[in-house]
């Protein structure tokens, strides 16, 4: 028998679970960052009352409901509307003037999860008078998350934060102008998704999404290993039009990536880049 520490044994269990997900369902998480992936798998394992990660295997292979839960755990990152208000401020000041020079705009929210950032952008471009010339593409590999994004309904207790972020981001109106309160939730006004195409797209396995003027993919790359980060960044480069913009999360960077030379830095702190 090969001598293994408990973490090494758990690592083997994770390999088996990922292999099963890939071969049985076609979802490939093998290039996700391990530490967070492990926490998520363990959480699902505990919720199901299973003692070890490998106990998930029989359920995983045969129970579609369990797999759906697991896929939700793996994809849904709960973010806020106007998370990092300074980013949206910078977008207004450094990117919007350039967007105005294009007669027609295509904006891709890659890994949009439940849609908070998509609606933030729709509001921003409405206020800048650019909404009518924009087509939005909101994609995620998880169709349940995408369904939530399409509905645009969020729990009421999150709205206070949304509204505060909106004000700090340089919002020109009142957040309530864009939403309708209903019981214990708010719904973003339907106009904000009129020009949005929601589509299933997997950054790990799917291809180029053509000729975008702006790609927003914030706090998605931090969940990937370096190999997958480079693949996705190359996919973004190839999906952008000449001089198109790429926006990453506050702690994500193009530096040291395979596409570093293909972009210029528009704002280092807010991680806004432009294709050369």
């Amino acid at each position, binding site marked *: 028998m090969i001598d293994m520490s408990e973490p090494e044994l758990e690592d083997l269990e994770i390999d088996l679970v990922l292999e099963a997900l890939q071969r049985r369902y076609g979802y490939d998480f093998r290039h996700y960052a391990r530490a967070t992936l492990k*926490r998520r798998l363990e959480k699902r394992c505990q919720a199901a009352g299973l003692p070890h990660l490998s106990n998930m295997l029989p359920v995983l292979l045969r129970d579609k409901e369990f797999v759906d839960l697991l896929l939700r755990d793996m994809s849904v990152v709960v973010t806020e509307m106007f998370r990092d208000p300074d980013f949206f401020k910078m977008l207004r000041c450094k990117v919007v003037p350039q967007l105005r020079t294009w007669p027609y705009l295509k904006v891709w929210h890659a890994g949009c999860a439940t849609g908070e950032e998509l609606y933030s952008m729709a509001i921003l471009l409405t206020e800048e008078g650019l909404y009518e010339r924009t087509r939005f593409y909101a994609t995620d590999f998880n169709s349940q998350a995408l369904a939530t994004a399409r509905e645009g309904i969020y729990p009421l207790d999150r709205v206070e934060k949304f509204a505060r972020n909106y004000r700090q981001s340089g919002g020109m109106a009142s957040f309530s102008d864009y939403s309708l309160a209903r019981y214990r939730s708010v719904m973003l006004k339907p106009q904000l998704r009129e020009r949005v195409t929601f589509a299933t797209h997997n950054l790990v396995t799917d291809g180029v999404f053509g000729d975008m003027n702006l790609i927003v993919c914030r706090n998605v790359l931090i969940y990937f290993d370096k190999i997958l980060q480079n693949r996705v960044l190359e996919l973004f480069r190839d999906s952008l039009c000449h001089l198109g913009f790429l926006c990453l999360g506050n702690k994500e960077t193009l530096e040291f990536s395979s596409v570093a030379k293909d972009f210029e830095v528009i704002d280092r702190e807010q991680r806004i880049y432009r294709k050369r």
Partner: protein
Amino acid sequence: MQTNQRPIRAIVMGVSAGGLHALQQILPHLPADFSLPVMVVQHRAADSHGFLAELLNARCAIEVREANMNEVLRGGVVYLAPADYHLLVENAETLALSIDPPVHYSRPAIDVLFESAADIFCDQLVAVVLTGANSDGSQGARCVKALGGRVIVQDPASAEVDTMPAATLSAVSVDHILSLEEIGPYLAGLHGSSHEPASS
């Protein structure tokens, strides 16, 4: 004392209320050429920017900075979890970040850092729990102990807020209880050594 101890490879620290003062007492003890990487979770407001890292960096010989994506682990650097991100050890060379839900209402959470670090460094890890007003860190400390690592707790009597060190003390049997003044010199003594620093 064990004689077959493997050398320490990393230090993790968790601190909450009262942290600014505590970190300013501890980190200046570490020399610029300190051989180990130090990862720190300090609970703070989601929008608190990079002020804390700048302030500590200006006052310490050792480099202090916020961790970015793919941050490579090096000795002689203190990696601070960015506000509103969890900080994790991905492997022996790299750190990782996530915006997964808060743990104990905290993001960054101490448990998340400690548990991931324990997985990678096992018995070659030292975890330090400092002043704070909640119980974050106690589960992580249990994990560190279970994998053979060393846990140091700030003496609750010397802590600005004693809830967090007390919670860890009641969760695990720790290796050392040290006053705030003793922690810096203790960590500095781990510098490249495979043995417990001599107790003064």
